[in-house]
């Protein structure tokens, strides 16, 4: 049986719950991960990913295969995340606390975790669309054209978002990038 995303969506459109759950199992880990990195909050990311999948279910009969299913789903997740970010205040970079030493003597691990946390905080400080463009590029390995399709903008606008986003990251992280080797 054809189990491409598009074939499964055709079955979902007819109310096939098994096909829907197969689609959800296939895409949820990536979507919840993307939502978590955009929102910086695992609980909210779970809510967003669940809401996105429910929208897939309810809107499936109206879905037209004009773009790849994954592009459509990613767009839903990103838009839901951006809506939530608009309603919640930004995380203050100075509020990033010390990382607890969970493995005694593992100084490198602690430093690595600190770097991760600093990077996470710096990414959270970026404007929403810069953050989304960077995360879509690096989490999904998407081309600039695919990112443009998801953010519903032009390729040149995505390039500008990436350039400005990385400039902001370099400014926020300073020499931390060079320590990451």
């Amino acid at each position, binding site marked *: 049986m054809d189990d491409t995303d598009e074939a499964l969506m055709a079955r979902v*459109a007819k*109310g096939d*719950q098994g096909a*829907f*759950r197969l689609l*959800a*199992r296939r895409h*949820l*880990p*990536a979507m*919840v*991960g993307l939502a*978590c*990195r955009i929102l910086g909050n*695992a609980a909210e*990311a*779970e809510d967003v*990913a*669940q809401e996105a*999948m*429910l929208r897939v*279910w*309810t*809107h*499936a*009969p*109206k879905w037209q295969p004009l773009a790849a299913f994954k592009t459509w789903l990613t767009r839903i997740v990103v838009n839901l995340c951006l809506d939530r970010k608009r309603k919640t205040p930004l995380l203050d970079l100075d509020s990033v606390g010390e990382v607890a030493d969970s493995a005694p003597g593992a100084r490198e691990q602690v430093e690595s975790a600190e*770097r*991760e946390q600093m*990077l*996470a905080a710096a*990414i959270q400080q970026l404007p929403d669309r810069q953050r989304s463009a*960077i*995360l879509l*590029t*690096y*989490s999904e390995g998407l*081309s*600039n054209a695919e990112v443009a399709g998801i953010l519903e903008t032009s390729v040149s606008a995505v*390039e*500008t978002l*990436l*350039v400005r986003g*990385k*400039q902001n*990251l*370099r400014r926020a992280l300073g020499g931390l*990038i*060079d320590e*990451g*080797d």
Partner: protein
Amino acid sequence: MKVTEMTRDELLNWLDAHGADLSRWPIEQRGEAERLIAADAGARDDVQAAARLDAMLARFAGPGTEDERSAARILTKLNGPLPRQKQPFWRLPAALLDWQFAPAWPRVAALAGCALVGFSIGIAGVDRSLATPDAQIASRDIGTMVFGPDLFAETRP
């Protein structure tokens, strides 16, 4: 053919826009960048710095074990009853055709039968109560009252 030169500032912009992996760049800019990198040690440093940032971002944005656990929790929730799907309007005729009328057939048939009998009686003139003299006078009065003549036509200015 004229060969354009890429500056270091332009290289930095392209590195940010497309990453340090030159194979993902547009072919034209890739050639210019390769010539600059071959000629300029500072440009090579720029590419290495961009690669370090790329690696950091890829590690941060890549899949984590917590993502799988979160996905499993959501899947458990999705195993419950799902909401009703929204049907597009162009599917309405098909939805009506798919409607199961079977249990209502006897009532629908009885209603149609009654309507047919009533219509036939009206057409055939079987109802004799309208043929009595009183009923005929009454029907003429009703006609006069509804359609005239206008009793007050001559009193109006």
